[in-house]
């Protein structure tokens, strides 16, 4: 019952955000000029270093652990396939989602909660400003614009980690590695990564606004912890489902001619 209520609440918040964002796109009145650009800076520019660092390290770690195993079977070139698919379809969206939840989400929660405690939300309302439009529309637009860029850059950095390990541990030339990545990864895979991260991003903005606005000051309140836990639980369930689905269909959808031989 609680889960049902959570879902209902989440979709109602998201519908709210979309409604006010659509209003904002039709009529900018009631929102400060430049607020989208400011949010682009905060969500994109300021998040990129940590997203890049994490995806780079994940790329290196997976490459290092896989390279030794693949070498045993003489399947060195398949490291490129593994890194390409794993990073672009799964790990980059996952890592970017976690980073957005942790960094951007926490800052939204803190900002809205502080504004609520300091009566700023009420003040906006009594000035005739719709706080949902004033605060959330720029954020939702910014995260929609920033996610594809973040994902593209994180994909590049993650694959770069693989390139470095492949060169150092297996002696695979970067050109060969990248050609293999481009062969196996389709534009659709890249888009899937973006869509997944976008969904995470919207969830972060919607949920964190709710957390900051409604739950601040309640007994035992740990907005950050609760949202993070819920997000991780969601990811674990999703990963389990994806693994199961893949184990039943991968041999058909991802069969590849043995060009590496």
């Amino acid at each position, binding site marked *: 019952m609680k889960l049902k209520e959570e879902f209902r609440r989440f979709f109602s918040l998201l519908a709210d955000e979309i409604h006010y964002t659509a209003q904002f796109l039709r009529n900018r*009145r*009631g929102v*400060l000029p430049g607020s989208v650009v400011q949010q682009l800076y905060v969500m994109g520019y300021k998040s990129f270093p940590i997203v890049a660092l994490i995806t780079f390290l994940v790329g290196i770690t997976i490459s290092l652990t896989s390279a030794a195993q693949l070498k045993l079977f003489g399947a060195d070139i398949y490291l490129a396939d593994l890194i390409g698919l794993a990073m672009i379809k799964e790990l980059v969206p996952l890592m970017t989602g976690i980073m957005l939840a942790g960094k951007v989400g926490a800052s939204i929660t803190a900002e809205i909660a502080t*504004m609520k*405690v*300091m*009566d*700023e939300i*009420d*003040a*906006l*309302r*009594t*000035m*005739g*400003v719709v706080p949902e439009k004033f605060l959330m529309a720029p954020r939702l637009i910014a995260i929609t614009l920033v996610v594809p860029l973040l994902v593209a850059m994180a994909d590049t950095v993650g694959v770069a980690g693989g390139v470095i390990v492949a060169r150092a541990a297996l002696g695979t030339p970067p050109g060969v590695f990248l050609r293999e990545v481009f062969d196996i990864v389709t534009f659709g895979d890249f888009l899937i990564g973006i869509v997944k991260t976008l969904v995470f991003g919207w969830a972060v903005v919607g949920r964190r606004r709710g957390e900051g606005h409604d739950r601040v000051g309640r007994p035992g309140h740990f907005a950050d912890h609760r949202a993070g836990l819920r997000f991780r639980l969601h990811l674990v369930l999703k990963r389990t489902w994806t693994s199961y689905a893949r184990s039943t269909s991968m041999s058909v959808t991802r069969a590849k001619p043995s060009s590496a031989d």
Partner: protein
Amino acid sequence: MNFSLLPGRITVIVGESGAGKSTLLKALIGLSPPLSGDVYWGEERIDYESERSLAALYRRIGVLYQNSALLNSLTLYENIALPIRIHRPETPRKDEEDRVHEVLGMVGLVGADHKYPFELSGGMRKRAALARSMVLKPEIVFCDEPSAGLDPLTASGLDDLLRALQTSRGMTVVAVTHELRSICRIADRVLLLHGDGIRFDGTLPEMEKSADEYLRSFFLRT
């Protein structure tokens, strides 16, 4: 409870914690509907479900919040200009600047327009919030605990400022407070809330003469 506000006067709402001062204030400023009954502006009933009705109310009132409620990401100038940009976006920039500097002058903050709220003292923030509440020339200014959290000297300065603005501009002011000094300095009329209704409604001299046991004990304790 049933009462009307006196135009051009300062009405102070007092009461113990939990008496309903903030709930009443929230109903008066359109933030939440009263649990029962209605609020009228002249002959017009405020419809809390109607955005249009609330927008009309918001254009006619200014609110000074207990925490000042200035937006920390904006400078003082931008904070004070915000209601103009929201309600009258067609206002020429020159007129906007003139009006912002005029209200800053009224509250004694000339030259602080480029500062951010976190760079100001508590008293300055309160005065800046008062300036923002007056920038659209509202018919009523509502103040929630105007002198709360200020030292006695600054609190007394703010009270004097409210009184001076009311006298010079004929503003109608409604203040919620429980500070006796403040009440004595600014109140034209005192409403004491107790239980489900208004225990006392009268002027300061009437309050001093009142034989009501609760009223006397409330102010003695305060």
